[in-house]
């Protein structure tokens, strides 16, 4: 980034940036962190972990009924079998959408989120309106995401905790009977695995 202005010989540090550096200095001096490992973590979460992981889980469940059963019974193990494990020791639960049930995930307390399968949460997931309104008015929230469900579809809202995180398994769209697992995975969006979206072939 290059800026041309009157202050181009000054580096003005954002106060929060200065505080992070201060903590890094203290923690580095105590041997609790080394800068290399911090960079690896940033790279991992920014570039290597993301909703593509969760999409693989969903596509496999659509494609392989035995895997779907395993995912229902023991999501932590079924997801770990694909190489996606949480670093915080959290358990996973997969909640399956059906013709009469739609699942929506929130964390009312802070922003617990299944990082290992979805990466880091989107801005709205962390916002106070989503955290409160997903529970009080899930249908209204879904409408704002452009999702309208029939009145007879029950919406279940799952409140994540530090120990238990949820992955929504959306309904497999009609017309995908001949799709490969890879082609199916390409259809699965992040929002569909939080419950604020649906999967369709057109997207």
């Amino acid at each position, binding site marked *: 980034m290059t800026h041309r202005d009157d202050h181009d010989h000054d580096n003005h*540090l954002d106060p929060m940036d200065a505080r*992070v550096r201060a903590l890094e200095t203290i923690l580095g001096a105590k041997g609790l962190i080394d800068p290399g490992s911090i960079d690896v973590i940033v790279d991992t979460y*920014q570039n290597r972990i993301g909703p593509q992981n969760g999409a693989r889980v969903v596509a496999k469940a659509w494609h392989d009924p035995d895997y779907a059963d395993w995912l229902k019974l023991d999501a932590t193990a079924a997801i770990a079998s694909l190489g996606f494990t949480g*670093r915080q*020791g959290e358990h996973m639960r997969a909640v399956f959408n059906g013709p009469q049930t739609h699942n929506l995930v929130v964390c009312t307390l802070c922003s617990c989120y299944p990082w290992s399968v979805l990466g*880091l949460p989107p801005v709205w997931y962390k*916002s106070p309106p989503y955290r409160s309104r997903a529970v009080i008015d899930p249908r209204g929230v879904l409408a704002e995401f452009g999702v309208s469900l029939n009145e007879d579809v029950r919406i279940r809202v799952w409140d994540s905790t530090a*120990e238990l995180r949820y992955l929504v398994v959306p309904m497999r769209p009609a017309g995908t009977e001949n799709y490969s697992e890879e082609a199916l995975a390409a259809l699965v969006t992040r929002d569909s695995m939080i419950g604020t979206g649906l999967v369709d072939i057109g997207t």
Partner: protein
Amino acid sequence: MNPPETHLQDHSLPLEIAEPCIFAQPWQAQAFALVITLHDKDVFSWNEWADALSGELKLSGTSRDGSDYYDCWLRALEGLLIGKNIASGHDVDALAAAWSRAAQATPHGQPICLDNDPEPA
């Protein structure tokens, strides 16, 4: 097309900003990674962390659009480290000031080092 904010009411959800990068600024990524590292090293449990973070997020004055989420994150981390006597508030303040002075004294384009602080303690 109008920017989405113009027709958003207060209770509405912040619409997704095109999000090629999950962190708005590099320090947010650093603060995030610090928590992951310190948890890996058993400096605190994930429950302790979730409690600290939710405590910060609950304070009044937190922005409705979630844009200060990592500000809360960093304050929670500072609070936890101070509570565990790993850092003191005074040291964090003093070092943050030193980093700011060092940045001011560093010519544009060069890496900022704490050694560039013109008034070291």
